[in-house]
């Protein structure tokens, strides 16, 4: 059923994924094989949610085989422990269990949602353990999934939003792993063989470095047993140090124009942003809310949409990662007015960096972020994702209590200072797909 919305999803949610839960009783332990476990016990719904996270995100790819991390992740559940892809999905469906996954530049996760009743949960967990521990990467399945991935890439290369996104990462990160993370091509995917998958799995899906998040209707004792069972069968040993190289800041402004016949231009602007645990994180977070993260009440929305009617959606966000994740501003507008809109965006950003926020904006931002705290942890699914992020990035268990306190302390001067030091509006990467100007 066709539905239209006044605005796309609240993009500041991406940044909020870094927050955890004040007063949430997070239990934490380490299994005998060294896996970190984060658990919140809650019996209000008969549901168990769990996620197993690995440092196996797409930044682990090499350029000549870009797409390997994604393909490995996709194939885990497509045949394991003597069960075919069909048998696995059949059994999961019979149990009413839902298998899922998440993937970004840093992290690859497998998730499971199951009824917590003993028969269903134990059978679902047994299947889940097979998928984690004994994936088969059969040549037939590889061939099929590789072909599907290649078709998807070819299709994406014709669509302006995907073209813009790919050019954005290539321009912002170049040969940094975060550039390669978004550089899959039909050629690089074609080059991936079964031995590559096996090796990637052995190297990156190991017990050291894995983080298990558990949420819901199980006792602590049961959670300990579940984590131990999942941990026991993972590849062990000492892994190679996986730290990422530093991101280089752009030396000069860079504008990439890509022709496309679409009726709208897709415009992205960016700069290297923040890392997890960054000292400037809180001022940048508050500042971004004011600039372009706060949905309808942001400066970008006010200038571009409310005052001038130039775009349906305009946003900005920081995506905090292990290394400097992107700061991005994005919008789409009728191609004839692309340059005009870009100028409005650039002026809005420059003014914000030069003058900083007003006292009124600071109060409104703090009120929203702090007052909206309960909404961030109002479901098991949301809590599970916070547990994964806290664990994966080694954030303190009190991270969320700290978060509200830190937000409350941020001043307008700090916001202005942090933006001025961290974002250089004269050296941004600008990508424009489809426009009438040369």
């Amino acid at each position, binding site marked *: *059923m066709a539905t239209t919305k006044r605005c796309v999803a609240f993009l500041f949610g991406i940044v909020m994924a870094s927050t955890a839960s004040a007063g949430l009783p997070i239990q934490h332990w380490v299994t005998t094989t060294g896996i970190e476990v984060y658990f919140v016990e809650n019996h209000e*719904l008969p549901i168990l949610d769990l996620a197993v996270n690995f440092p196996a995100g797409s930044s682990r790819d090499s350029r000549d085989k870009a797409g390997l991390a994604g393909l490995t992740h996709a194939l885990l559940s497509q045949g394991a422990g003597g069960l075919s892809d069909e048998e696995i999905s059949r059994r999961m*469906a019979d*149990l009413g269990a839902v298998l899922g996954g998440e993937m970004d530049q840093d992290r690859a996760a497998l998730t499971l949602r199951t009824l917590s009743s003993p028969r269903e949960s134990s059978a679902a967990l047994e299947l889940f353990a097979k998928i984690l521990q004994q994936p088969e990467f059969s040549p037939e399945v590889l061939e099929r999934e590789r072909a599907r991935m290649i078709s998807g890439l070819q299709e994406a290369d014709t669509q302006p939003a995907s073209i813009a996104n790919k050019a954005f990462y290539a321009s912002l990160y170049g040969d940094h792993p975060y550039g390669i993370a978004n550089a899959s091509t039909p050629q690089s995917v074609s080059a991936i063989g079964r031995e590559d998958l096996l090796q990637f799995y052995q190297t990156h899906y190991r017990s050291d470095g894995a983080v298990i998040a558990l949420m819901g209707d199980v006792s602590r004792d049961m959670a300990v047993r579940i984590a131990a069972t999942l941990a026991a069968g993972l590849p062990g040993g000492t892994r190679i140090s996986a730290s990422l190289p530093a991101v280089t800041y752009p030396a000069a402004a860079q504008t990439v124009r890509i022709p496309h016949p679409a009726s709208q231009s897709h415009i992205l602007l960016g700069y290297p942003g923040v890392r997890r645990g960054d000292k400037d994180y809180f001022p940048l977070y508050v500042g971004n809310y004011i600039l372009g993260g706060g949905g309808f009440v942001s400066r970008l929305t006010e200038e571009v949409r409310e005052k001038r009617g130039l775009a349906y959606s305009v946003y900005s966000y920081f995506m905090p990662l292990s290394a400097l994740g992107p700061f991005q501003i994005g919008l789409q507008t009728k191609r004839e007015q692309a340059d005009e809109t870009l100028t409005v965006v650039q002026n809005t950003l420059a003014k914000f960096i030069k003058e900083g926020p007003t006292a009124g904006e600071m109060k*409104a931002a703090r*009120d929203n972020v702090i*007052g909206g*705290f309960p909404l961030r942890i109002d479901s*098991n699914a949301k809590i599970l994702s916070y547990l994964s992020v806290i664990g994966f990035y080694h954030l303190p268990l009190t991270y969320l209590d700290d978060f509200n306190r830190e937000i409350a302390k941020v001043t307008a001067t700090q916001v202005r200072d942090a933006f001025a030091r961290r974002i250089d509006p004269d050296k941004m990467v600008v990508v424009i797909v489809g426009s009438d100007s040369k």
Partner: protein
Amino acid sequence: MVFLLALLPAAAHADIQEYKLANGLKIVVQEDHRSPVVVTQVWYRAGSLDEYNGTTGVAHVLEHMMFKGTKKVPAGQFSRLIASAGGRENAFTANDHTVYFQQLEKSRLELALRLEADRMANLLLTDKDYAKEIRVVMEERRWRTEDKPQALVYEQFQAAAYQAHPYGRPVIGWMNDLEQMTVADARDWYRRWYEPNNATLVVVGDVSPKVVLQLATKYFGPLKSHPLPVRKAQIEPLQHGERRVTVQAQAKLPYVLLGYHVPVLYDPEREWEPYALEILSGVLDGNASARLNQNLVRRDRIAIDVSTGYEMVQRGGTTMFQLDGTPSEGVPVADLENAILGEIEQLKENGVTADELLRVKAQVIAADVYQRDSMFYQAMKIGNLETAGLSWRLLKDYPARLQAVTAEQVQAVARKYLTTDNLTVATLDPQPIDEHAPRHKEIPHGHN
């Protein structure tokens, strides 16, 4: 399965209260005390279903204008007040309804109700705001439909499948109608449909129903209601043979969308066909091992993706049972279409297995539990049923109704409705990207 059935009482939707104010506003409150938050949704029984040719998209345009202020709460302030209260808010328009919602910490409930009641009656709708906002809506149409090949296919599919019924017109509206629209059209729409007797307030969260009623009475109670226009049923004439439409757009992969006219829920006490159609959709596409994915994607590798869609709750009294897919590299789109039709014939001929039926039912029961993790989703279910003229009470019976469906019934609805003379097929014919080619082929037309 016996064990799963025993779960049913735990999944029952027990704590729902229903009220009606003297002015006709319906209020449904579901208590959910897991977190100190509250979801409010105001559902108007006004969507593209109620539009006429020439002003398609006006329901959605008015939705945009609802954020443009009243005398008490000037333009932009609605969003600022909710944001400062730590809240999130938005709205959406569909065929059957227009919905405004807020998510807040529970003590802020009163703010949401005060603001919604104010804009139900006092919207300003100035020429100046309209002139800017209609441009935003046209940008939205470009973004949502014009440049998205599969969205264009869907739009053409609906237009071909429905020749008289308003479901044939896009919710976002035809571009020409948006270009011709005036603020008077929006005002007219607002005056016609934005009445307490045409709305349902749904509240889900850590609240007391009595307090909700008290606050709703305080703010919505004083609003006067007016008689609503007569809604004339617009019934789609019987289809007499297959319909085909092709869409050419810049893309790499072809795509095909097939659909059959099928019934929706109308008399839930007696009908079983909608439930059988829902199970049928599950057998074809309910999980990764279901027939379409297993046979066409995994076994035969002729498709990259295949899926089905069926929604039994529709105020318009009709809907399409849809199947769509993207063929694998080198596979003609006609081959995929034939393979999908082959799966349908196979099912009509041999029915479904007991295992398949149990599998779909197990998923239904689990999904009924899982959806309780989202207050927003629960409010959506309530509002959707109420606005369609059904009752939230159906939520309680829904799993049991699906459990009661037999293999014979699934086969029977497939045989009855998935027939060639009831079929519409829309195909995407992908065109190479040529940035020099004029995108809009203008065909001259006379004005009068």
